[in-house]
């Protein structure tokens, strides 16, 4: 692999701050609606299934598997240009939701759909790190 990705800082607001503050603690935080029980990601101030405002956050296992991926060979954006080829992927979490993310710590040739992965946290240009995944 080339250089590591220099991740742009994720913008946080009142709705998403618990997710990013969790990331800063090394925790992958998901939302569940207390009223109807639906899990949702990305985080929102209310449940968009039943419109209840009774949302709770919980720490997910951080375990999942590769749902799909692409090895990116070209991206002109600074921070990514130098990191090509890098792996963009959807990871399906044990809890259900699928996250767009990067897979790190392995050769692209080792990747296959279904590969078990676990979350870790990568520093960004800003206050909060972002979850990325590594083969479990």
């Amino acid at each position: 692999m080339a250089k590591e990705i220099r991740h742009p800082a994720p913008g946080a607001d009142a709705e998403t701050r618990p997710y990013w503050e969790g990331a800063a603690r090394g925790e992958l935080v998901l939302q569940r609606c207390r009223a109807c029980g639906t899990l949702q990601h990305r985080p929102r101030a209310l449940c968009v299934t039943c419109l209840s405002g009774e949302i709770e956050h919980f720490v997910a296992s951080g375990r999942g598997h590769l749902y799909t991926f692409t090895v990116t060979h070209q991206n002109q954006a600074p921070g990514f240009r130098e990191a090509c080829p890098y792996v963009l992927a959807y990871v399906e979490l044990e809890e259900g939701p699928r996250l767009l993310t990067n897979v790190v710590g392995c050769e692209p040739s080792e990747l296959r759909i279904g590969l078990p992965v676990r979350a870790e946290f990568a520093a960004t240009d800003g206050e909060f790190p972002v979850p990325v995944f590594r083969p479990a």
Partner: protein
Amino acid sequence: MSLSGKVAIAGAFEHPTRWAPEKTELQIMAESARGALADCGLSLRDVDGLASAGISMGAMGIVQLAEYLNLKPRWLDGTNIGGSSFLAHVSHAAAAVHAGLCEVALILYGSTAASNALAIGTGLGGGGRDPAAAFVGPYGLTTVGSYALVARRHMERYGTRSEQLAEIAVTMRRHAALNPDAKMRRPITVADVLESRMISEPLHLLDCCIISDGGGALVVTRAARARELRKPPVMVLGCGEAVAHQELGAPDLLTIAARQSGAQALGMAGVAHADLDLCTVYDSFTITVLATLENLGFCKPGEGGSFVSGGRIGLGGELPVNPDGGGLSSNHPGMRGIFLAIEAVRQLRGECGPRQVEGARLALAHGTGGTLGVAHSGATLVLGRD
């Protein structure tokens, strides 16, 4: 009361330019307007509705366009849902005309994406300040990457092969060779596609659309009015729009917006798949065509790979797709939806010379806008001869 068959595309024009560093985008739009109005025998004074979208248009771009053209329309549509916008503009214009909100709607697009060296497919990566983009931007999602995620999933689930995706690029290039305005006309082979450099696996350079300058225009009016104009009217028989996105964190990447918008448009038109003589499909990448044809229902999910092979989507095949060569070979000035409608109109009028689909009476145009595996729009039109 359905608008199906009550509204027509009366004028259409594709700007022949593919490289116009000396022109502004507004100029390309105005030249395209001149072409489409001349095509149907109307003048700018007849226009009382205006629609457009663009990559570099600001939030009030439609107002600035009206100012440039010194128009004071009574109906405006600046809807921007990505490259499919212009097909949505046609359906919005049809509804407006049908409801009497305007009489002659002009839909415009113009772009100097190539001469401005815009990195459309492979230049994203930031977007960190937008809280919604925060779940995408930090990971280096590119436009092509979002489509590649779908392609990889399709291959895993159904055994689709790169050779089958390459067939799409080869077919578009074969069509482009018959289109004197097309940017890329030299024939290519499946091997050429597979040997071209990898951009975002499994998509190679030749799985990706080109980038050009260009523009186009459409004129939409009542069917009765259109019948009095210069060219045979092309009827708007059905239309539909849809979005597909990450939902609550469980995207089914292989179900795309085309499923919903296509079903609505075909249902409204009362048209079956077998009735259609050709399709124009947004071919940003080869996988876009395969996923679109499956979701429109031309074949079952997973059968796209074999459907696009064996000449079926080529001229003379069962369902010719993009006889003009599409975005993969003819033109792709950043957003391509307007050309899908323009080529369908030209085919239904029988104006296409060596690339004409013989006796074409019914066409379907489908545009995809945005990032396929992440968040995208779809807009479908079913168009037919009077």
